[in-house]
């Protein structure tokens, strides 16, 4: 039998939820439409994508140099730098900073890296109140769920879902109106900001020179988290760096346009270091997390590290639009998740992911930094077959197929044998059921009966000189 990681089962469950797909459609199409409406004003979009890809490559090729510069410049501004090789080290660093400063209440701005290192549970276990302040992330946190999308975490929740979550968790008793719901959250979160001892965010970009930590939010929570509490701590993957403000400007031009179809997010907040004047944080910490990234950098899939987490490939993906983000065995989902998670978790726990693709190639076309997602999806399928994750049936089938493709007589014989084998199982020209492993196909799709004469024979008949075959 074909082997599965559990992903397969989860996608089946997700696609059985009828309302999930419609919610995902609204969100992903809205964002895709936004991207398509705004990007033409860049003029030569391909030119901008290439500039951005080249820039990301340059950074990755000189990552050590730029990290050195970033660290030196931020330290000069008074920011404390921490290095973490693993998720566990990163969690310990944050715990220690919180403990050293007797932190009781933390406000967080939405961040994928803190999801990746699974930060909240260890802080909560230490008795610290951790509040997500991005509205979508707050909803998901109250519901005890995980984010369903890199950019819009509550994508799987309807307005009615939010009403029920708010009723249960924060005593909401208003109508099912997004504006009223948002205002209810605003009142509560404003107090959280006011009373928090520590703010935590991810990092959209760190600028090496001048040393700056940049985060983008539309709601303004990023400004609160970086400005109000007496301690601000940012967590970043080591690859999220740009050389200077020129490069930051280009990345900002691309990020929001490709993500939500805006020209720029409403607030882009830069932090160099602690405040020296009574407004703003007294301490600023930056945790630089490797967690497998240097391994990716050393391998053939290093271009994955170009990714700026805009979510564009999720919005474009016909598979993601059906299954959403919760099926994936990590916080990253969609096409980028399918190529990134195998690097972070190992192929043995994720060899199914690259198969969640129709290979339509849209994910590659909509990527602002030209991550070659479709190529990597194929290469990873190759890797997983090589490692034997396809199971014996696939292995035998593919071996026979490979042999037959190289021997025309065997290929022709195979075609005839297939027709002879399949014909009796058909009804009105369609095959609705096949026994054994091929049944996986017919359980969701009907198969047409092979034509009476193969393409090859038709070709030979129509081109009687028979040049193409021998």
């Amino acid at each position, binding site marked *: 039998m074909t082997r599965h990681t559990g992903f397969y089962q989860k996608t089946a469950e997700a696609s059985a939820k009828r309302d999930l797909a419609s919610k995902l459609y*609204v*969100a992903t199409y*809205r964002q895709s439409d936004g991207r398509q409406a705004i990007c033409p*004003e860049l003029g030569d979009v391909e030119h901008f994508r290439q*500039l951005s890809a*080249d*820039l990301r490559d*340059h950074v*990755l*090729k000189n*990552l*050590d140099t730029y990290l050195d510069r970033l660290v030196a410049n931020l330290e000069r501004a008074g920011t404390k730098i*921490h*290095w973490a090789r693993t998720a566990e080290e990163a969690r310990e660093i944050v715990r220690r900073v919180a403990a050293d400063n007797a932190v009781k209440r933390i406000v967080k701005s939405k961040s994928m890296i803190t999801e990746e290192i699974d930060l909240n549970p260890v802080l909560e276990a230490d008795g610290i109140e951790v509040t997500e302040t991005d*509205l*979508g992330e707050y*909803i998901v946190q109250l519901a005890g769920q995980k984010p369903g999308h890199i950019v*819009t*975490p509550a994508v799987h929740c*309807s*307005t009615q879902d*939010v009403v029920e979550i708010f009723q249960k968790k924060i005593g909401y008793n208003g109508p099912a109106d997004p504006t009223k719901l*948002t*205002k209810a959250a605003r009142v509560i979160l*404003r107090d959280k*900001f*006011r009373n928090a001892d520590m703010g935590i965010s991810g990092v959209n970009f760190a600028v090496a020179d001048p040393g*700056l930590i940049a985060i983008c939010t539309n*709601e*303004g*929570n990023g*400004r609160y988290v970086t*400005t109000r509490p007496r301690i601000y701590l940012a967590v970043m993957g*080591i690859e999220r760096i740009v*050389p*200077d403000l*020129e*490069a*930051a*400007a280009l990345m900002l*031009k691309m990020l929001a346009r490709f993500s939500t179809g805006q*020209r*720029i997010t*409403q*607030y882009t*907040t*830069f932090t160099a*270091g602690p*405040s*020296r*004047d*009574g407004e*703003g944080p007294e301490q600023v910490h930056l945790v630089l997390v*490797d967690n497998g990234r*240097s*391994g990716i*950098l*050393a*391998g053939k899939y*290093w271009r994955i590290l170009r990714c700026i987490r805009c979510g564009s490939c999720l919005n474009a993906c016909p598979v993601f639009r059906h299954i959403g983000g919760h099926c994936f065995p990590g916080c990253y989902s969609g096409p980028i998740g399918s190529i990134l998670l195998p690097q972070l978790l190992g192929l043995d726990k994720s060899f199914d992911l690259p198969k969640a693709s129709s290979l339509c190639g849209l994910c590659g076309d909509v990527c602002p930094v030209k991550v070659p997602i479709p190529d990597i999806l194929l290469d990873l399928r190759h890797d997983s077959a090589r490692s034997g994750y396809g199971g014996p049936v696939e292995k035998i089938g593919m071996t026979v197929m490979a042999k037959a493709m190289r021997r025309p007589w065997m290929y022709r014989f195979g075609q005839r044998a297939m027709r002879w084998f399949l014909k009796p199982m058909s009804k009105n020209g369609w095959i609705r059921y096949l026994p054994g492993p091929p049944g996986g196909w017919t359980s969701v799709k009907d198969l047409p009966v092979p034509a009476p004469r193969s393409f090859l024979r038709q070709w030979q008949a129509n081109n009687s000189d028979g040049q193409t075959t021998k």
Partner: protein
Amino acid sequence: MTSNVLETIRQALRSGPINSTESHPLEAERARLFFAEADRKKLIDLFAQRARSSGASVHVVGELNKLSETIGTIISDGERLAVDRPDVISERLGSGFLNQLKESYRTVVARQLDREEIFKINVAITPVDFAIAETGSIIISAGSDRSRMSSLTSDKHIALIWADQIVPDLMDLPAQFKRVFADNVPPGFTIISGPSKTADIEMNLVIGVHGPGELHLIVLLKGIAGNPPK
């Protein structure tokens, strides 16, 4: 631990498929959409159009009376007004204007508010460091003489932009940053490009989540002011 991660990265770069180091490939001019514009009116129009499309209100004002009038339409009775960088405002617009604000509204200076009082203001008036037409953005920095909280905690944010503070493209950010701050990098700054907003509940647009629900950008034409504040 420091050398550990960096050393692993260096090793990865030595042993992996990528090892070439090239000079920074980005020429800022190649990433521009808008170039320096001789016609300032066109630049103001672009700024206004772009800012409006992200939800801001834009008022272009050429006289001091008109400015007072505009502010009057924004602030409601009884609302608390926090003024930021009053020195800059009175230097550019005259101390009479500042006094008039103090007489007309419950006015305080933003940086004189403590950590609790800053949450009790309704309207904030702030000058800006500079503005970008392409994205309809303003830049506000942190520093001992200015407030970064008032433009966040208020319900309405009024930003005063001198017309010649507007530059065409986001790619102008680095040069403006240098011009305004020289080598004194502020502890922080924010690019503000519209009111606080979200679409996290079924993609329904809601304005005024954590930050101000109203952003009023008042562009002051030349007759009203001289050079932009440093």
